[in-house]
C-alpha cells in the first residue's frame, strides 16, 4: 500500500490518472510488474479507480453499479448472470452494505457511497487499486473509521493499492510506503519511518511533522542559530543551512554547552498537553514544543532547551519552502 503525498498542485492526482490511463504521459514508461502498460488503453489496464467524488452511476442501483464492470465484459469472458449476482453479494458483504443493493447512490451517505465505489472497483479484480483522496469528502469520525476499515480490507485482500492524499497523518498511518511529491517531482519514497526520521530533501523535512525552518550557519564545527552558538553535529561540513525543527526535537534541559536559551512567547492548552511557542532569537521563526500539562509555563519566561535531533539542509535548494 503506497501513499502519494504532497501539497495541492504537486501532481499526485495526475500521477494516479497516468497510472489508470486517463491521461497520457509525454515521456517515460509505465510498468505493471514487468509488463509495459504505457500504450494499453484504460480498459485493458484492469485498474480499479475510486474517484474523489466516487463517480457512481447515478441512475443505477448499488448492485448495478457494482456489477457494471462484469456486465460490460465481452461475451466470451463475461460471467453468467448467476455468477455476477453471487459476486455482487460477496462484494456487498465485503464492504458491509448488505441489504442496500437496491438503493440509488443519492440515497446513501458519503461513507456508504465511498464503499460502493470501492466494491465497484474491486469487482473487476484489478491488478492495482487506485484511490484518489479516498477520505477527502468525509467528516472526521467517518474518516477515522473508514481508514481503519480500509487498512483491514487491504490486509485481507492484498491488492496493490495506490492512494492520493494531502493529509500526512493519513499517509503515514495507512501506507506501507509513502511517496512525497512536490511540483511534479518525486522528492522521496520510503517507509513512514524513512520519511519521518531520514527526510531526503529539504522539502520533505519541511513538509512532514509540523517542522519550522530556521536559517543557520556552520563554521569550524560550531552551529550558529541567530546569535547563539552550539556544537555542530560531528562531521558536519561548513556552510549556510536551513535547520528544520519539529516540536518533538526540542527538549527542555537545565544548562549544558549544547543548550540554547529560549523565551516563551505563547502558551496554549491542547487536550492533555500544553504547547509553548519559543523564540530562539530576535527575528527567527518561533518553534513549538509540547509539554505535559503539569508544566506551568508563563509567557515571557526564559528557559534552556536542547535540540535532540539536528536536521540541516543546504539553504536555497530547489525545494526551499
Amino acid at each position, binding site marked *: 500500500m503506497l501513499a502519494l503525498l504532497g501539497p495541492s498542485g504537486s501532481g499526485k492526482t495526475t500521477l494516479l490518472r497516468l497510472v489508470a490511463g486517463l491521461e497520457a504521459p509525454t515521456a517515460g514508461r509505465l510498468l505493471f510488474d514487468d509488463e509495459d502498460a504505457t500504450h494499453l488503453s484504460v480498459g485493458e489496464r484492469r485498474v480499479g479507480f475510486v474517484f474523489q467524488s466516487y463517480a457512481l452511476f447515478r441512475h443505477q442501483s448499488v448492485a448495478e453499479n457494482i456489477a457494471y464492470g462484469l456486465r460490460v465484459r465481452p461475451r466470451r469472458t463475461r460471467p453468467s448472470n448467476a455468477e455476477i449476482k453471487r459476486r455482487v453479494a460477496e462484494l456487498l458483504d465485503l464492504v458491509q452494505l448488505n441489504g442496500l443493493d437496491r438503493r440509488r447512490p443519492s440515497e446513501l451517505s458519503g461513507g456508504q457511497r465511498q464503499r460502493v465505489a470501492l466494491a465497484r*472497483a474491486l469487482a*473487476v479484480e484489478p491488478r492495482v487499486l487506485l484511490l484518489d483522496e479516498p477520505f477527502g469528502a468525509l467528516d472526521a469520525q467517518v474518516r477515522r473509521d473508514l481508514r481503519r476499515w480500509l487498512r483491514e480490507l487491504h490486509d485481507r485482500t492484498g491488492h496493490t493499492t495506490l492512494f492520493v492524499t494531502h493529509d500526512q497523518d493519513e499517509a503515514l498511518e495507512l501506507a506501507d510506503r509513502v511517496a512525497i511529491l512536490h511540483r511534479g517531482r518525486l522528492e522521496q519514497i520510503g517507509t513512514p519511518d524513512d520519511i519521518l526520521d531520514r527526510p531526503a530533501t529539504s522539502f520533505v523535512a519541511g513538509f512532514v511533522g509540523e517542522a519550522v525552518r530556521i536559517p543557520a550557519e556552520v563554521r569550524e564545527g560550531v552551529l550558529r542559530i541567530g546569535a547563539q552558538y552550539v556544537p555542530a553535529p560531528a562531521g558536519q561540513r561548513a556552510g549556510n543551512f536551513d535547520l528544520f525543527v519539529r516540536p518533538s526535537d526540542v527538549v527542555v534541559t537545565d544548562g549544558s554547552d549544547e543548550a540554547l536559551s529560549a523565551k516563551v512567547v505563547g502558551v496554549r492548552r491542547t487536550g492533555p498537553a500544553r504547547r509553548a511557542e519559543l523564540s530562539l532569537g530576535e527575528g527567527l521563526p518561533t518553534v513549538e514544543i509540547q509539554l505535559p500539562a503539569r508544566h506551568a509555563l508563563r509567557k515571557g519566561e526564559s528557559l534552556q532547551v536542547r535540540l535532540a535531533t539536528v536536521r540541516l539542509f543546504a539553504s536555497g535548494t530547489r525545494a526551499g519552502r
Partner: protein
Amino acid sequence: MRDRVLTETSVVRWLLIAVAVGFLLLFLVLPVVTVFVQALSRGVSTYLAAFDDDDTRSAIVLTLSVAAIAVPLNLMFGISAAWAIAKFDFPGKTLLVSLIDLPFSISPVVSGLIYVLLFGAQGVLGPLMKSWDVQIIFAVPGIVLATVFVTFPFIARELIPLMQEQGTVEEEAALTLGASGLRTFLTVTLPNVRWALLYGVLLCNARAMGEFGAVSVVSGHIRGLTNTMPLHVEILYNEYNFVAAFAVASLLAGLALVTLVGKSLLEWRHGDELAATRRH
C-alpha cells in the same frame, strides 16, 4: 421556511396573482379557446368536412413527415454537439456554442432566405443542384432544411448545461471498469440526460410542426405539394375560408397542447433533473 420580512400582505399577494392570471387568460387562454370556438362555429360536421380535402390532408402529412425527418436529425446533431462541447476541450469551442444559438437570434425569414440564396436558381449552389437535377427550393428538401436549421438549438441547448454540470467523471469510471466508448455512451451518458433529451425533443417537435417564417420563404406555397399546416392555415384564411382555416389551426394547436401536456408531465416527474438545465 418563509421569511416573515419577505411575506407580502395578503392584499398585495392576491393582486399579483390576479394580474398574472388575468394576463394569462387574456393573452394565452382566450386566443386558444377562440381558435376552437371559431373552428366549431358551424357545427362538428362542417369542422370535420374541413379535413375532407386533399390539400388539407397533404398539408397535414407534409407537416408530420417534415417533423419526422427534422427531429431525428436534430436529435443526432444535438447529442453530438452537446457531447463534444460538454465533454471535450478543443479550440473554437466558444465559437461553436455561439453558432448553435444562431438560429435563435436571427429572424426565421432570414433563415429561409439563406437557403434560397444558397440553393435557389440564382443561388450559389443553384447551377450545381440543377445539373444534378435536384430540386431543393420550392420543394420538400428545402422545407426540411429550413426546419432543421430553425429547430437546431432546442436539443443541444437542453443538453449542454446538464452534461457540463455532470462532467466526465462517470464516463471515466465506466472506462476504467473496461467499458468501450460506445458502451459508456449508451449506459452512462445517455441515461443521465434522458429526461432533458426527451424535453428537448418535445420542444424541437413543437417548433418543427409550427414553423412558419423560414418554411414560408422556401416552400413556394404549392398546394398539395409544399404546403405545410401553418402555411395552409394562412392560405385558407386569406381565401375567407374561416372555418377550414380555424379547423386546421385547431389541429395544430391540439398537437401543441399534446406536446405541452407531455412537457408538463416530464417536469412534474423529473423536475430535479430538468432544474439543472433551467438554472443556466
